[in-house]
C-alpha cells in the first residue's frame, strides 16, 4: 500500500537538525553531569567511582536542606503574589485601542532588562543610604536595611521578583482574556452577572490553559533564581537569602567540588521536574475527571 501514498518519510530529515541541537545542548551535557556525580574527581586524571555517596551526602547536608526550604518558600511566595496580581493587571488593561499597545509595551519593559541589571537596579534602589526606596522608608520612620535585616532582605527580593516577572503573567493572561468572544461578556451582563461572576464563570475557564503555562514558567524560573539575589544580597545577610543555585555555584565554582556539585545538580533537576510534573498532572487530571463525570 505504501506506493499509493504520495509521501515518504522525508519529513524526518526536517526534524534532524533539532534532534542534533538538542542532543549537543541538552542530552550530552546532562549525561556528563550524571557521570561526574558518581565519581570523586581530584583532578581530571585521577577519578574514583564512588557510587551514590555524593547523593547521600548532599541530601543529608544541613546547608542544602536549609537552602531547599528557603527556595520553596521563595518560589511559592512569588507565585502567590505574581499570579493573582498578573491576572488583575491583565483585567485592568483596555481590550483595544491606542492605550492597549502603549501599556503592553510598558509592561514588557521589565522583561527586557538583563537579570544582573535588575539586581543592580534594586541593589541601589533599596540602599538605605542613597537608594530612593531605602531612604524613603527610613524617612518614614521604618528602620529599613536589607543588608543587615534578613526579613528586609527577603521583602526586597520578593518585591524585585514581583516587579520583574508580574508582567509576564499579565501578558499571558491578557492573551487568554482576548480570546474570550465579546458575546460571552454580553451574555453575562444580560444575565445580571456580577463582576466576580464574570471573572469566575466567563474568564477563568478560558484562562485555565495560559495560567498553567504561567505557573509552570514562574515555578521553574523562580526555583532556579540566581543572578538577582547574587547581585542584590549576595546570599546574605548570613545565609538568609542563599538559594539552591547559589549554594551550588559556591560548591562547583568556588570550591571546585565537581562530584558533589554534580550530584546536587541532578537532585536539583529532578526536584524541578517533580514539581512541574505534580502540578501539571493535578491540573490535567481535574480536567479529565470533569470529562469522566459527564
Amino acid at each position, binding site marked *: 500500500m505504501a506506493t499509493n501514498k504520495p509521501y515518504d518519510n522525508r519529513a524526518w530529515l526536517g526534524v534532524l537538525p533539532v534532534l542534533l541541537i538538542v542532543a549537543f545542548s541538552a542530552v550530552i551535557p546532562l549525561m556528563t553531569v550524571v557521570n561526574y556525580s558518581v565519581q570523586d574527581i581530584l583532578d581530571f586524571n585521577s577519578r574514583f567511582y564512588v557510587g551514590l555517596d555524593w547523593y547521600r551526602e548532599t541530601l543529608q547536608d544541613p546547608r542544602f536542606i536549609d537552602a531547599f526550604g528557603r527556595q520553596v518558600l521563595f518560589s511559592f511566595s512569588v507565585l502567590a503574589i505574581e499570579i493573582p496580581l498578573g491576572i488583575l493587571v491583565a483585567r485592568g488593561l483596555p481590550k483595544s485601542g491606542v492605550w492597549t499597545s502603549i501599556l503592553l509595551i510598558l509592561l514588557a519593559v521589565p522583561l527586557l532588562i538583563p537579570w544582573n541589571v535588575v539586581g543592580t537596579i534594586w541593589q541601589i534602589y533599596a540602599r538605605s543610604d542613597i537608594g530612593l526606596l531605602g531612604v524613603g522608608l527610613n524617612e518614614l520612620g521604618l528602620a529599613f536595611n536589607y543588608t543587615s535585616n534578613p526579613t528586609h532582605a527577603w521583602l526586597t527580593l520578593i518585591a524585585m521578583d514581583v516587579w520583574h516577572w508580574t508582567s509576564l503573567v499579565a501578558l499571558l493572561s491578557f492573551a487568554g482574556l482576548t480570546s474570550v*468572544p465579546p*458575546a*460571552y461578556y*454580553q*451574555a453575562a*451582563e*444580560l*444575565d*445580571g*452577572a*456580577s463582576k466576580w*461572576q464574570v471573572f469566575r*464563570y*466567563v474568564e*477563568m*475557564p*478560558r484562562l485555565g490553559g495560559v495560567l498553567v503555562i504561567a505557573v509552570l514558567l514562574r515555578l521553574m524560573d523562580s526555583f532556579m533564581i540566581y543572578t538577582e539575589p547574587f547581585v542584590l544580597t549576595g546570599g546574605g545577610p548570613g545565609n538568609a537569602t542563599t538559594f539552591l543555585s547559589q549554594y551550588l555555584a559556591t560548591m562547583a565554582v568556588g570550591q571546585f567540588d565537581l562530584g558533589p556539585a554534580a550530584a546536587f545538580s541532578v537532585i536539583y533537576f529532578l526536584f524541578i521536574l517533580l514539581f512541574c510534573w505534580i502540578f501539571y498532572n493535578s491540573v490535567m487530571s481535574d480536567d479529565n475527571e*470533569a*470529562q469522566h*463525570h*459527564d
Partner: protein
Amino acid sequence: MATIMLDELGFAYPGVLEPTLLPLSLEIKDGEAFALLGASGAGKTTLLNLLSGLLVPTTGRILFDGVDVSTQSGSQRNLAQVFQFPVLYESLCVADNLAFPLRARKATNGFSASDIQARVAKIAGELSIENLLKLKPKTLSLFEKQLVAIGRALMRPNVSVVLLDEPLTAVEPRTKWQLRQSLKRLQEELGVTMIYVTHDQTEALTFADRVAVMADGRILQTASPQQVYEHPAHEFVGFFIGSPGMNFVAIKSAGSEQMYAANGVDQSAQRIGFRPEWARLENVSAACTSPAVRWQGKVLHCQILGTQAGAPVGITTLASEAGELKVRGAINAIVGDEIEVVVDRFISFIDEEYCATHHAQSSTDYLANTADE
C-alpha cells in the same frame, strides 16, 4: 414582557457621515414574535445592538412599556439574548447554566432555591433537555448547546424581550427546523416578546407574526409574512424574499401602453414585478391582440427542482424583450426554445414603492368587457 416602542431611533458611528441606521419608528407588541430580515450590512445588527444596550442611539428613543431605556445598560433593561453560536458557561453544568440568570439576580427578584429548581425543570421540560441537565457544555452537540442557550434566555419569567441574533447559524441544516419549532412553540406558550434577526427568509417567515424587511439602514416594510410575500411594499422586498426573487419589467421598455392600461396600471408606474409562480409558459401564439401581459422569449436555462407526476418541475429562465425572466412550474421547454411567458398576476411599482396588485385579464374577460361597452 413588554411593549417596545422605537421613536425616531437612529444611529451613526462617530465621524461617519452616512448613518448606519436611518431614524425609524416602530412598535413591537407585548408577546409578539417579531423578525428583522435583511442581507448583511442592512443595519439589522446595529438595530439589535441598540436594543440590547450595546450601542447608544444618536437620535430618538427606545421605550420599554413607555419607559425610556435609551441610555440604560442591557442588564437594566432586563432583556435576554441568544447569539449566533451557543454562548454557555463552560465550567457549569446545563442545570447551573439555566439557573444562572435567576441566581445572579437573586437579590432583586426574590427567587428561592426551590423556585429556581422548579423553573429549571419547567424550561428543561419544554425543550426536552431533562436528560442533559447534569452534563457539561463541552459534551453537547451544537444543536443541544443552542437549545440550552435558548433555555437560559427564557428562564426569567419577567424578561422584557428576548433577542435572537441568527440563532441557527451554527446548527446543521437538517436539524434547523426542529430548533425553529421549539422556539416558536415556547414563544407562544410563554408569551414572551421575541425579536429574531436573520437573513434567512424561511426562518423569518416561519417564526414571526410580523416581519420587518431591512436594507441600507431602513425598514422597507413591516407586515405579516403573507403580506410581505404577496404584497411587497418595495421592489427590494420582492427581490429579497422568494427564491428566486420577483421578476421586474420596466414598463417603458417592454409591452404596449394599451396592454398596461387595460390591466389598470397607473400611468406614473415605472415598473411591474411578478413572482416566478405568477406566470406560466405557453407555446408562441399567433399575433395576439388580447391585453394579456405576455412576452416572447428564448429559453436560457432550466433549473429542475423535482418532478411532479414524473415530469420535471422547476424554474425556467428566458431572455425576452422584457429582460431576463424566471418562471416557476412544469418545465416543458428545452434550452433554445422560443416560448411565451403569460403573467396572471403582477404588482405595479412607483419609484420602487408598491402601487397596486393586478390580476391580469384573460382574453375572454377582455372580450366580455369590450362587448359591454
